């Protein structure tokens, strides 16, 4: 039995891993850590975050099937490359994010533009030292990726000759509701995207038994 199972290999999870080390199990559906920032195109530090996941047990490529309580512990049923497998822990911290936890979301694009882009109603962030920009395209909170890319494609159609898409996001960029973190049915919900940047998220994980829980 683990002391804690963390759902999502996020930056908050990286902080918790640093704190709990081998007593911690991190479960991640994707093949990447820190996806809530990297997957939304906030680059940098991709290599270093994995060092934290060396310190704990981390399982990638697993979906969460169910979570139930039994004899004061949590049983977490997962499905991964070798089928179903159940893990047990004293506590569960969910660092993932979904539409129910959020007020809005964007689908981000990394673009190259010779001049500063001028897209009305879109937040555009310059990547320092480059002619690259992160374009935050607001999409309906409950829309899927197909719908999001349909919206984004219309934006691409407004590109000038000197503007080019470099990369589109693999994840939605969520704006989390103000009432997080919170605890429900014994599970602590601490979405990593609650924090403005990856450093703050990591520190929140590191401080998991300090300020956050109080």
């Amino acid at each position, binding site marked *: 039995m683990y002391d804690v199972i963390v759902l999502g290999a996020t930056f908050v999870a990286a902080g918790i891993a640093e704190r709990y080390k081998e007593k911690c199990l991190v479960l991640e559906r994707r*093949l990447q850590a820190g996806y809530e920032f990297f997957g939304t195109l906030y680059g940098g530090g*991709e290599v270093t975050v994995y060092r934290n996941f060396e310190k704990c047990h981390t399982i990638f*490529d697993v979906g969460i*099937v169910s979570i139930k309580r039994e004899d004061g512990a949590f049983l977490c049923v997962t499905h991964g*490359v070798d089928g179903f497998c159940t893990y047990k822990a004293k506590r569960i911290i969910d660092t993932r994010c979904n539409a129910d936890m959020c007020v809005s979301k964007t689908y981000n694009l990394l673009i190259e533009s010779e001049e500063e882009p001028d897209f009305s109603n879109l937040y555009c962030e310059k990547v320092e030292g480059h002619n690259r920009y992160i374009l935050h395209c607001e999409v309906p909170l409950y829309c899927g990726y197909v719908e999001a*890319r349909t919206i984004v494609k219309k934006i691409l159609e407004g590109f000038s000759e000197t503007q*080019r898409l*470099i*990369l589109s996001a693999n994840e939605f960029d969520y704006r989390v509701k103000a009432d997080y973190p919170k605890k429900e049915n014994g599970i602590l919900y601490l979405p990593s995207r609650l924090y403005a940047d990856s450093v703050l998220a990591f520190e929140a994980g590191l401080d998991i038994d300090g300020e956050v829980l109080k």
Partner: protein
Amino acid sequence: MIYLSEIVNGEQVTREVCEPSFEKSFDVIVCGLGTSGSLAALFCAENGLSVLGVEAFSCLGGTHTVGGVPGHYFGCPGGRYTTVEQDVQDFVRRYTHTQTEGRKFVVEQTLTEQGVEIFYEASVCGVYLQENTVIGVRVLTECGILDCKASIVMDCTAEACVAVMAGCETEIGRKTDGQTQPYSMVSLVFDGKNYGYTNIDFGRVNQHDRVKLSEAIVFSRGYKMEEGHKGKELIAQMPLMGVREGRRIIAEETVRLKELFEDKQTDTPMFYSYADLDKHGWDIAFDGEVLGDWAIGSNLGAYNVTVAVPYKAILPKGYDGILVPCRALGVDRDVSSCVRMNRDMKKVAEAAAEWADLAIKQNKKLREVSYDQLKERLMESGCLKESDNRGYRVDGTRNWDGTPLTPHSVEWIVDPEKLEEVLKTEAPGRAIWSVKRMGTKAESVLRQHLSATDENLRKHSAFAMAILGNCEANAVLKDIVIERDGLMLKDCRKHNNLRGCVAIYWLGRLGDREIVPTLIDLISNPDESCKEIYKRENAMTARYKMRGFEYAYFQFVSQAVMALIRIGDVHSDLRPQIKNAFTSVFSNDDYYHRITTRPKETSEGNMTQIIKVIAFSAIRKWEIE
């Protein structure tokens, strides 16, 4: 009776289900919307079938998009995918720097316009069967579990995940140690002018073991290469790992390299695959004898081959209602490194879609569909063209030394008198393989060449004699090994072997007992690695100039270990001597440090460790015997 089949803790578990309540029903469910799956779903929908696509990522395309492999490596153009590709190129020209982004947007839009329902961030976790016919799947989505019915399920997971759940038989890895090809991590980089992808190969991974897979992800994504990204700026790591090889189904018709080399071809092809037997592992010494005779013994590893892929290679043996139109199709391990390229995956998607369409519209089982009808459709689209049956060829853009390469067909020599001309060169592979094809009629000519003063003719004739299983030239082969002949043969644009390694290979294949002391000295003498031959520039150009890895020495040691194992296999009295040598050399890591300074989890470190694993496996096998 209907059964639900699942995998629990790595084991198949099947239970009876009286009345499954399917929430949704489709003509076709495509599991995995990667290179093949996305197009299989599209072509099915264009044929008027109702389609559900299930994909683990948040977009489609797999290796062709989130895997960062945008282009086409060989294969034969043609078929329905070319129309889609045109739309992708139009999009790329107008809006983006990268093919992968174009594909992501265009294929998805086309799919949805055709009415394909897509479940992203979802995976199949169970299969419904009626006897040996797949009738539906259980899907794990972000919102929970959903049971869906289908006339035909397409397993496009690249790993035969659905087929394995259903109980279909599969194979994986090479015979010597079960290892697959090295995996790589791909990154999007910027060189100051253009955006492109760069991949770094790591060691082998068992991608069906969640712990080992996860350890590999943590190591490889966190590993900072000494070389960095060769001066390029890292933009992003691609989310999908570059796993090159996985499970392969045992199909109703499975293609095997041995039969390909015997010119045996299926008479029911769905398309022709065309590429080299593209092995990324440098430890080719352990890749088996069928491939070894070709890639090592004849130095033809980068020659292109044509494979007629039978349509029944995507139907798991004994099953119906399921097709496996992806990398996991029915080919053996040696052929799989050829039949995995993007064009092949697009063509297999088309064949599967047409086959499914015929079955559903004619209300037949898959195995009842007429090949002639399928063939007609595939020929009409250009997926199957007799002109694609191009045999063996030298292809590519650059020779090993960077000079321009002129692609051409390979003509095998049929007259023994014509062998000399080629054997005299530093590219003797075509002649050596021709000897294999013509058989013993070449022996008398080769026998004369063994006493020739021309070094190339004498040595290469010895290789040709060896490929016939004839030991008459073993003395010449031994001389080549003793002098540590480091000449790099020059048949191929890449993967060329050193002549000394080829000689070791053949002495092992022929079970030559007299070479044993030399080979033991080669692997055990600490001064061996300091020899000039291993430092020569021409030796290093044999493959990548990798810092911290003695490529030429690695090749000699790995070939020597495999040769000693082969010799020990046929001469049991030599086993104690070989066993003592292996135990002495591999009981510590001195041999490792002589070969590489790289970490054990890197591709180079992994391959260096494999030498030891192979050696100890042989000892265990002999002890049991």
